């Protein structure tokens, strides 16, 4: 049981940005389920959110928590989620990937948490043409950012009863930048002597992930490797439609799918798998001290897939997004 402080049942405001691609469908699924459960959350919906617009940006700072579908600026081919991370300093990105029985997946008994530095590295955006036909892109690594992500990873491992943290790097080639990152991880590891600490080179790590993923527990790494590894761990378990995630900083927390894709190929066709987003929303609920609703939603998703065998196409079924969502609602209260 969770004993609330008096008044904790009052309505809480959470910002909701449906965004583009599959964003509206997966966030709708969350809204319907929350309504069915009478979750004490009021969504401030920003339908036309835009970083060019100062009003929009002000609204973004208003609430601590944000639920995000997928963000892409107008006329952009690729996602623009990074703007949120930079603006709100959401420096830790977390992706959960675990085997879920009852669906098609490549590996079983896997339970991995990927913690990714979310604000610098290859994503620092400093680039120039030094000479016609020769471009330099700068990867920036700082001691401060490396320390705080390492800190977050070990703190997470500690608080969630995890046994091991693996730092992923390419310090044999990028001796300085990845060397600095490793140094930070080692420093923090020393303070957590009860958690096992390992290091692994990124290329070997990806090979190990597809061969023998049960060896991994919590993983921590710089931005770009994180982007790749998140997708690999999703790939070996239930896919990107099952992997939940969030991005967290000191003042704000943003909840979205664990692998951030627009999914234009399936958007608007009522075939999207809302599971990842639903599970991400339960991370939000726990973050706000509403664990009972979180438990109910997790159990309902599990019951729908495992017991009722109702699944979307990506995990080997033929249910539509709407059918899946209403089955989850029917399974609530278990």
């Amino acid at each position: 049981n969770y004993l609330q402080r008096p008044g904790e049942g009052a309505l809480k405001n959470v910002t909701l940005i449906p965004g583009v691609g599959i964003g509206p469908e997966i966030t709708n699924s969350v809204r319907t389920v929350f309504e069915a459960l009478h979750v004490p959350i009021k969504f401030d919906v920003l339908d036309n959110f835009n970083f060019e617009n100062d009003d929009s940006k002000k609204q973004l700072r208003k609430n601590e928590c944000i639920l995000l579908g997928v963000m892409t600026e107008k006329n952009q081919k690729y996602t623009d989620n990074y703007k949120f991370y930079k603006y709100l300093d959401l420096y830790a990105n977390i992706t959960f990937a675990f085997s879920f029985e009852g669906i098609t997946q490549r590996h079983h008994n896997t339970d991995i948490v990927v913690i990714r530095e979310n604000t610098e590295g290859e994503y620092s955006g400093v680039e120039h043409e030094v000479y016609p036909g020769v471009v330099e892109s700068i990867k920036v690594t700082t001691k401060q950012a490396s320390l705080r992500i390492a800190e977050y990873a070990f703190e997470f491992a500690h608080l969630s009863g995890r046994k091991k943290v693996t730092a992923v790097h390419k310090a044999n080639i990028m001796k300085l930048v990845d060397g600095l990152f490793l140094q930070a991880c080692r420093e923090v590891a020393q303070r957590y002597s009860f958690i096992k600490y390992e290091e692994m080179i990124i290329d070997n790590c990806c090979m190990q992930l597809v061969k023998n993923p049960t060896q991994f527990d919590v993983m921590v790494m710089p931005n770009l490797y994180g982007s790749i590894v998140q997708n690999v761990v999703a790939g070996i378990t239930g896919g990107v439609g099952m992997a939940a995630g969030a991005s967290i900083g000191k003042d704000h927390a943003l909840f979205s799918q664990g692998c951030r894709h627009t999914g234009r190929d399936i958007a608007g066709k009522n075939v999207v798998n809302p599971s990842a987003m639903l599970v991400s929303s339960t991370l939000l609920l726990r973050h706000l001290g509403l664990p009972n609703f979180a438990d109910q939603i997790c159990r309902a998703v599990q019951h729908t897939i495992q017991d009722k065998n109702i699944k979307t196409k990506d995990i080997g079924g033929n249910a539509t997004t709407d059918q899946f969502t209403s089955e989850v609602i029917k399974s609530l209260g278990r």
Partner: protein
Amino acid sequence: MNIIRKASTTILRPQFNYQKVILFPGDGIGPEISKAVIDIFDSAKVPIEWEFHEIHKKRVTEQGDLITEETLKQVKALKYALKGPFETPIGKGYRSINVTLRKRLQLFANVRPCKSIKGVKTPYPGVDVVTIRENTEGEYSGLEHEVVPGVVENLKIVSYNACQNIAQYAFEYARANNRKQVVACHKAGVMKQGDGLFLKVCDDVAKNYPEIEFSEEQIDTMAFKLANDPTKIDVMVMPNLYGDIVSDLCAGLIGGLGLTASGNIGKDCEVYEAVHGTAPDIAGKNLANPTALLLSGIMMLKAMRLNDYANRIENATYQVLEEGKFLTGDLGGKSTTTDYTKAIIDKL
């Protein structure tokens, strides 16, 4: 080395149409697996003649290379070389053998085909992918510095010329090997100029190969697809770091580095190699699995347009692996290197 020397004397045939090829047998299990390749090629009557060269344990050139000028010259002259695994000596004052070969011979492309082997159980049946990796620049240019204490930078270099070379090679490879699709992997959403340039060059080069279907994918999405369902993927071309990661990931899909071939391609010459280690724990015990070096040799034969020999040896190898009666220990079998080699020879 003894077994190698002995083996080599038996295959020196003074025929003018025999092409000379360089062999670096390697350390640890290198000599044993090299001998297996020599024996198999010999039984298949492959019209090549091996020329043995050494890689040293100490620097032998001004620049600190472990390989002599004469050998480097000879690789260029003969065009094709096959290389076993080498121990990397620990210490300073020399360059790693791979860096030397890549830099001095300008081997700009690394090619790694990965094909599921029936008989080797993995969660990924039906894989048949090729990673083509830019091998000379990108994040591996070695340009790094500390800007202020606690802030370091690494420069990723992308040049038009290198992109042009690798893109062209990828499509030529696809054409020569009868492949249908090439996909360029990038992160041009983040590295708009660097990866953007790579992508643009691939796009332009693709226009000269209308028979090959060209597409692009972000590297993270590609990683997802490879780990989830790699069966629809064909040839992939990408910058250095992504290629490093993806080629190992693909090796993992088919069962590891012991089963993957690798080729390093330059304008003047090509070096094929087993990318696994020297396995000192089993060296000299007749337990090593020679498949990676053998498949690399087969890849070399295809590049030399000796396709009939290549296909015959390849089929025999796959048959032996599929039947599973003569597998080495790493694949869960009990056979020795020589038993496995003989089984392949019997199938030829």
